[in-house]
């Protein structure tokens, strides 16, 4: 009993519940929804789809979590996604041997380095020039898609390159490569922030910048770093997204991904006011959002009410997490427990 109550008090209880409810809804509609089968040595099924589709969003949301923890926000991730895909695919398309591993590797490196540079640019504007994050990243958000279009000439660049396809659609050890990449980076960031002191320093800067400065933190460096990381992760996400469809769409790749990422971060319990952050929370938030997207299709929600449906789910998850509601629920449970005990006697 107390174990159950302990679980229900956990920070992530309600987001996880939301995820389970969505999965349940899907299973009710399509009974084989949760089934995972092995086809040609790969795992296959809706849960795998969810994981694979979550990968790019997870990457973007990871960077966003760190940025938000420092009280910032990064609106430019969508543009970076577009640029990264555009650069990689243009490079591969123009190379003499699009199918070779070497070409793809070079393209990936170029794209990731460029994304790092773009992230650093944001970091520079925020930490050195001192522009408010929302405006600083708005600059790249606006200009970025233009740059991506400039690279692709406004067209959708399409390629056929088996190694590149592997990134988004390939399998390794039965699991999608994209999931392995995102999972690996997730683990890396977790280690980076929790096994070193970086996490704590980021939180300190986010909670009280003035105190952190006096405590000797190099807050500029830290802020710079989180934006650089955010850009880099967005770039990798861009590679996954473009590999997914084997095309670089400068206009639509990663469109509104910043909103989804922020939403995921917040559903995961990280406050937009900065400070304490939770990477596992972000992971759950991302899964909720991807599952929600799939649910809309599976349930056959008409497009015209899709936004309404999303709004209702988001509001429900947030309301359940609200402190007021939590207190109420707890009080009710407390009242209910003695009664239950009496009944068993």
């Amino acid at each position, binding site marked *: 009993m107390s174990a159950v109550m302990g679980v229900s008090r956990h920070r992530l209880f309600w987001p996880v519940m939301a995820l389970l409810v969505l999965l349940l809804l899907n299973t009710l509609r399509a009974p084989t929804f949760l089934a995972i089968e092995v086809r040609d040595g790969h795992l296959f099924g809706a849960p795998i789809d969810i994981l694979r589709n979550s990968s790019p969003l997870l990457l973007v949301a990871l960077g966003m979590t760190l940025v938000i923890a420092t009280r910032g926000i990064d609106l430019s991730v969508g543009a970076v996604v577009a640029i990264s895909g555009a650069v990689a695919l243009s490079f591969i398309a123009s190379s003499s041997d699009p199918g070779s591993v070497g070409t793809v590797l070079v393209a990936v490196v170029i794209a990731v380095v460029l994304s790092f540079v773009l992230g650093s640019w944001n970091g520079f504007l925020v930490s050195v020039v001192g522009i408010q994050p929302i405006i600083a990243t708005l600059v790249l958000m606006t200009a970025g898609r233009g740059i991506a279009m400039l690279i692709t000439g406004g067209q959708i660049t399409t390629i056929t390159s088996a190694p590149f396809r592997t990134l988004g659609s390939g399998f390794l050890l039965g699991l999608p490569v994209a999931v392995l990449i995102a999972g690996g980076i997730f683990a890396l960031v977790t280690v980076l922030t929790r096994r070193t002191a970086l996490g704590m320093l980021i939180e300190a800067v986010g909670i009280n910048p003035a105190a952190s400065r006096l*405590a000797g933190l190099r807050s500029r460096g830290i802020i710079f770093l989180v934006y650089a990381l955010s850009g880099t992760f967005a770039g990798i996400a861009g590679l996954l997204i473009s590999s997914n469809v084997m095309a670089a769409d400068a206009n639509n790749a990663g469109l509104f991904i910043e909103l989804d990422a922020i939403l995921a971060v917040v559903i995961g319990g990280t406050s937009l006011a900065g400070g304490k952050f939770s990477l596992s929370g972000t992971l759950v938030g991302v899964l909720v959002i991807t599952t929600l997207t799939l649910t809309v299709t599976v349930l056959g929600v008409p497009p015209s009410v899709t936004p309404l449906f999303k709004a209702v789910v988001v509001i429900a998850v947030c309301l359940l997490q609200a402190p007021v509601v939590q207190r109420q629920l707890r009080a009710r449970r407390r009242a209910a427990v003695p009664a239950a005990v009496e009944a068993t006697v």
Partner: protein
Amino acid sequence: MTTTSDAPLAAPAADPVPVVQMSGITISFPGVKALEDVALTLRAGEIHSLMGENGAGKSTMIKALTGVYQVDSGSIRVHGQEMTFKGPAQAQAAGISTVYQEVNLCENLSVAENIMLGHEVRRGPVIDWRATRARSREHLAALNLDIDPASTLSSHSLAVQQLVAIARAMTVDARLLILDEPTSSLDAEEVAQLFAVMRTLRDRGVAILFVSHFLEQVYAVSDRMTILRNGKLVGEYRTAELPRMQLVSKMIGTSLEVLEELEENPRRSAATREGATPYLQAIGLGRRGSVQPFDLDVYPGEVVGLAGLLGSGRTELARLLAGADRPDAGEVKVEGRPVRLRTPRTALGHDIAFSSESRKTEGIVGDLTVRENIVLAMQAERGWARRIPRRQADEVVAKYIDALGIRPPQPEALVRNLSGGNQQKVLLARWLATAPKLLILDEPTRGIDVGAKAEIQRLVAGLAEEGMSVVFISAELEEVVRLSHRIAVMRDREKVAEIDNSEHVTVPDVVSLIAGSDVHPSDVHA
């Protein structure tokens, strides 16, 4: 020592209906029972002190009364009527005006607005700014404060902000005025002014609840006191009938050692400096609009006190030494080598630690735990990549929680939830943990109870003995004189004198220097 003074008072003789009567108050926070069955009675025309160590529950009691916290059980009667306030606004409407412990004003607004917010003079629905400002000026004048009401609050030092908060509390025609540590950063003159105002109000029939860790002040101003210990009620006493020693023993709950220590604390005399290189040497260091260029040497093992009036520039001087502000003139030498202290980080790199006077805005990182707050500066020095191993951190944290008596002694508690005094101790621990060679302490004893204050003073003395240099700022001149080897006197943002401390130097000497009259020329290097 008579038995009557020791025993709680019998039923109050005077006013049959107290202004406020709280009884059976219990409040718990997750993990802490902050108050347990506490009673408090406040009568019209009386100044009542609420006494207790850091974390005893004084501020919580006040917040329970004003509706910031909801009580778990207990009753609050205002003028005999049972009341539950849902928030400070309701308490204010019922005639209870409060100055909370941490200055809770809006730094972005002007002084006048901070005083008058919610009570602005209006003509119809429109605020009459001229009248509002005039009114605020009156309230400031009552406290002898002549600052421009139109200036932004953040441009004033903490002490001024505290006075502004008090002025705000006076705008309401209150029947009960609550002052939670209003004097912690005021100097003697301001305190006297405040007490005069308090007495006037008392004579007008206002009930006043006063919290302070300065025993002199409590004895000087209050008629009655209620003592709390560990969230429990010890008793209510008439001030005149309770000797200090007993008060302290009731607050602490054990022997009187601490207070004795406080009294016998050794008088510092000038250390031998011949041939030694100063650890830190400031030459013509200054910053336009903030501090006039000054020279200052701090030798190893020396405590240098900074004395001066409110706003005389002590904080600004300290900030220049700590790299918190950038000087625009002069140079700094550390161990004889010229250095540039561009940021607190570089200062820390030269083993210079600085504890700021504003613990809320520049000190604690509220949402981090006690452990994290203590190791923060240490960690900053090591860089992010090399995390302090858990075991080492635990050791350091345990050591300082123990040494400074941080309560609750839980490393995982959020600093935000600690009482004010305990937050200050956490900050001290943070700096001590970096093992600095020069420790700059700006009002380190602000809001700290007698026991802990003695503890900190002893600590500072001990550290100096071990060879650490200390720059010590305090609004309490006694403390400065007692602890320092040398005292630098500030006036109008300028270092005006420097005295070698000795048996002959007294507080009045320093005061006269601050005031600008002359003293024994032999002790002064102006």
